């Protein structure tokens, strides 16, 4: 498994993300409430720079249990592609509009003050 140090912990304050380059890959590294996640900076829809949007936000969902009324949820966990707005849930890589689309996820860990991305990846 190839690993790469992509920055210092201080480079990734909570609630922010950055696109880092590891070899030929661009990876969005997200710090969501102290947990780190990595997604490819490539939207499978039309190859947009998925993780270059300014910030991860929440989103609206509605279901029968909630009487079909929309509620704001997943605060800080949703990234929308800047090109066309296709939304993804960062912790799971799941596309909200088309659940059959799942992004590969990169393991991101913190070792001391280093943020480390593993290119081994994880099954979607």
């Amino acid at each position, binding site marked *: 498994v190839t690993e790469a140090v992509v920055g210092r912990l201080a480079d990734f304050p909570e609630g922010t993300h950055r696109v880092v380059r590891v070899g030929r890959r661009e990876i969005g590294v997200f710090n969501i409430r102290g947990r780190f996640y990595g997604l490819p900076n490539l939207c499978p*829809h*039309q*190859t*947009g720079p998925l993780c270059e*949007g*300014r*910030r*991860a*936000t*929440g*989103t*609206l969902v509605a279901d029968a249990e909630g009487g079909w009324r929309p509620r*704001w949820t997943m605060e800080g966990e949703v*990234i*929308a*592609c*800047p*090109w*066309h*707005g296709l*939304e993804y849930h960062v912790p799971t890589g799941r596309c909200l509009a088309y659940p059959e689309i799942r992004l590969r996820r990169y393991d991101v860990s913190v070792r001391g003050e280093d943020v480390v991305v593993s290119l081994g990846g994880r099954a979607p």
Partner: protein
Amino acid sequence: MMGEMAIDTEPQERERREPLSDLLIVDADVHVHESPGELAPYCDPPWDVALRTVADVPERYLDIPGFSPGGDGTLTARFPTAHEGARMVHTPEQMVAELRAIHVDLAVLFPDHLLKLPVLPQADYAAALARAYNAWLVDRWTSRHQSLLGAIVACPQDPADAAREIARYAGDPSIVAVYLPCAGLDPLWGHRSYDPIFDAAQAARLPVLLHAVTVTSPVFPFNNHGFDTEFARHSTSHTFSILANLVSMVSTGVVVRFPDLRIGVTEAGISWMPFLCNRLDKEYLERRREVPFLTERPSHYLKRVYVATQPIEEPERLADIDTLIDLYDGEDTTIYASDWPHHDFDHPVKLNQVPFTPARRRKVFGENALTLFGIDREGRRR
């Protein structure tokens, strides 16, 4: 046996698919950003004063009072998102660089705010804006780079002035089309009052390109207040407008009275075209006497209309796009458009995933547009 042969030959053709960088890509719909302050020096008095008055108004996407009132999406509740919903291009240098990044070789420029020109009720003001935009477009954009070509706007509120503008730019090497704005238009483009515009375009050998945008107004088919989401309004407004205007232009005989006029439509996708051909042909069986000037069935005329692909449908079976084009005999009339830099632009990568034959791929991405705009591969008018 026949089936096996088909299976044998098709993949070989597909393997020869050219990379996007090797393909001539002509983009039939790209948008420059014209702010009121930019147009003011090009605008006749007293309307230049009005433009300077709103020059410093904080601008939202296609939303400036007295210039492009009532923005796309300003009716609905706003929530935070990383989607860049208001991309703009301010200089030719920026445009050339951004189009190069999506492999576009030649582009036809349309406005941003003036997409809503027909909603302005003051005809003299609207006509002055159109003249200012046309002069600004040539001076600041199309004369600055060979890959940037222009569509001058025809002001529907003043057809005589629009005809004069077309004649004025008829010989400009960088102007390749006349843009017919559709948002909030009344009456529709088939109305007799617009004949001077079609006359002038035909004489100038410039095609007309219809382009709508989403607005909510009492004018058919933009009376879309029955919808409560932008999802619904934006899904329908562009396409309904193109449908309404083409039905209008066929049913009043524009398509027969101006036989050499080349007509194109933008930003409506392509999947409505088989419907419209079949629907009008069916109606023609019963009501031919209302349109006695047609010498052919309606689909004959519709199939001569050039259809820009954006927003290209994205069915699970992308081969359906190829089939849709077959259904309106569109191999020679379908043209790529990106709509860069707008929120719903199409990167050519999606259309390039359709299993076209190599010949059809080259036609759709570039060669058909060369015919429509009357230009060579370097963008020079023929």
